[in-house]
């Protein structure tokens, strides 16, 4: 500690250790928090088509079109250890050929500081609702749920499902030659 450089070295190393301890403290204050909130989902339009599917092994697959409303208040999730939320809407159902199907229809990134009241109306799905086969027609039970991935400042990234879901049924017949 006789020269300036040696003192600066000591000081800087000590500050970094203290900073690491503070970050651990930040993590430990929010590690066991329950990050689930109630979510409200409504569906306004459901349509199904049977189209050429170039990504799968068969010629034609079912393609679903869902228009929905989502409303939720994300404010309780944001604390000092949350950097952003990655929200996604999943459709879950079962068909004759597959016991469990999960398709992500829409997602959104909500950064810290953005508006946390989610009130979206008449949203079309972002991604294609393709089925692996033709199991969507007359499928009575398709469950839509909103989940999110919490990206923290320090610690683990939990995957949380919102409480509140919407069940819908697809119609019996295909739509023909109507644009979306």
């Amino acid at each position, binding site marked *: *500690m*006789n*020269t*300036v450089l040696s*003192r*600066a070295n*000591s*000081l800087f190393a*000590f*500050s970094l250790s*203290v*900073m690491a*301890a*503070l970050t651990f*403290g*930040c993590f430990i*204050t929010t590690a066991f928090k329950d990050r689930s909130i109630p979510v409200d989902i409504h569906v306004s339009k459901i349509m199904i088509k049977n189209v050429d599917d170039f990504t799968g092994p068969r010629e034609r697959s079912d393609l679903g079109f869902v228009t929905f409303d989502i409303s939720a208040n994300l404010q309780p999730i*944001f*604390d*000092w*250890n949350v950097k952003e939320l990655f929200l996604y809407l999943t459709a879950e159902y079962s068909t004759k050929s597959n016991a469990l199907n999960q398709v992500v229809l829409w997602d959104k990134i909500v950064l810290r500081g953005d508006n946390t009241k989610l009130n979206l109306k008449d949203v079309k799905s972002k991604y294609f609702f393709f089925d692996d086969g033709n199991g969507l027609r007359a499928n009575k039970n398709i469950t839509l749920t909103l989940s999110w991935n919490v990206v923290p*400042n320090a610690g683990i990234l939990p995957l949380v499902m919102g409480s509140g879901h919407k069940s819908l049924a697809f119609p019996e017949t295909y739509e023909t030659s109507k644009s979306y």
Partner: protein
Amino acid sequence: MLSAFKSIPTHMDYKGQKLAEQIFQGVILVSAVIGFIYGFTIQQFGWTVYIMLAGFTISCLLTLPPWPVYRKNHLNWQPAMPETSGENRDKLQEIQKKKKHK
């Protein structure tokens, strides 16, 4: 130009170094505690980091330059012994005489 920097005296005496270490450790720990409590209260970790950086800057200013308070306890070196220099002179004269003989 580097030699100009190197020639500035930056030493502290032993007790001064101990005082400097205690001061910077204390300042950084206090600013860490204040920062943690303030950040937790307003739920923004950014403020914790800012307060820590402020504490770091204050302790840099207090302990990096060699203030006079760190030079109060001078080490008392022993005075130089005069017999040693006399012995050396005698030996040198003996060697010179031997060379002259040769």
